[in-house]
């Protein structure tokens, strides 16, 4: 038995041709966050504190889809969500529909630690964030030019996209839509 840590920055149709200028910063972020987690575990920080610390760092770096760099809704807004769970106590906390909270995972932790509930959403979650005095910023802070472009591509294709999905051609869109409708699949779950 020994300590261990694993982290992810999202799964999806990540092309093997991902250019170095997009790949290398993401790999460096993973390496950086892994080092933070390893250092914290070695210093005997609890796993609950470690996962919050690492996810906060991932949220603060805009290369991944959380916090700053979150992808956009069909209205061009951000609606962030996060959760955290302690295996020892089975205590957990979750939030969704956040548009101004800098670190959603820490608000989830506060839901877990400071309320009798598990999950707060939208206006209630935002109000709780202000009550708790967590850092908030205008929602424009979270929106990156890259994600505005991705939203426009998704709207052109009339579909929702998992992380890193590549744009598809118009002809493909038409065929895919016809197939999806024939299968009764709206592609939005």
């Amino acid at each position: 038995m020994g300590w261990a840590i694993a982290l992810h920055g999202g799964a999806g149709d990540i092309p093997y041709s991902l250019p170095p200028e997009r790949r290398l910063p993401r790999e460096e972020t993973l390496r950086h966050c892994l080092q933070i987690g390893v250092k914290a575990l070695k210093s005997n920080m609890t796993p609950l504190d470690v996962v919050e610390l690492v996810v906060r760092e991932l949220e603060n770096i805009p290369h991944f889809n959380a916090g700053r760099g979150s992808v956009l809704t069909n209205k061009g807004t951000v609606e962030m969500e996060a959760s955290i769970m302690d295996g020892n106590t089975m205590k957990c906390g979750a939030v969704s529909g956040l548009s101004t909270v800098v670190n959603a995972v820490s608000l989830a932790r506060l839901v877990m630690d400071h309320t009798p509930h598990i999950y707060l959403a939208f206006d209630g979650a935002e109000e709780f964030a202000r009550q708790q005095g967590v850092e908030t910023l205008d929602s424009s802070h979270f929106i990156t030019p890259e994600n505005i472009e991705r939203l426009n591509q998704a709207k052109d294709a009339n579909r929702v996209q998992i992380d890193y999905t590549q744009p598809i051609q118009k002809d493909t869109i038409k065929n895919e839509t016809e197939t999806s409708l024939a299968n009764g699949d709206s592609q939005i779950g």
Partner: protein
Amino acid sequence: TVGCVAVDSNGNLASATSTGGLVNKMAGRIGDTPVIGAGTYANEFCAVSATGIGEAIIRATVARDVAAIMEFKGLSLKEAADCVVHERTLKGAVGLVAVSASGEVAMSYNTTGMFRACATEDGYSEVAIWPN
């Protein structure tokens, strides 16, 4: 989506996940992340953080199923994670990272790739995107 799971030398486990969701999602849509047991779960057996299409992850209760398979079938973490990801979940829809109470690590996905990293006390470390 981003996530992290960790276990200390005493077998204490925790998991956390955070996301902006899907590009062009309907305003008001809830994904798997805040639904405990879907994208995030931890108990005395393992800690799991998932990523991918939230609707598929919710339907398959991905994170809880990994823990349940370990508990009720006695499989290892890697076997449980691979079972859920490759046999019980829509292909191209999900990835996860997990650690067990004994310090085992699993990073399983059925998408083209997953941005991931891990380290263990015995000195093993990995940063990867695609299958090796």
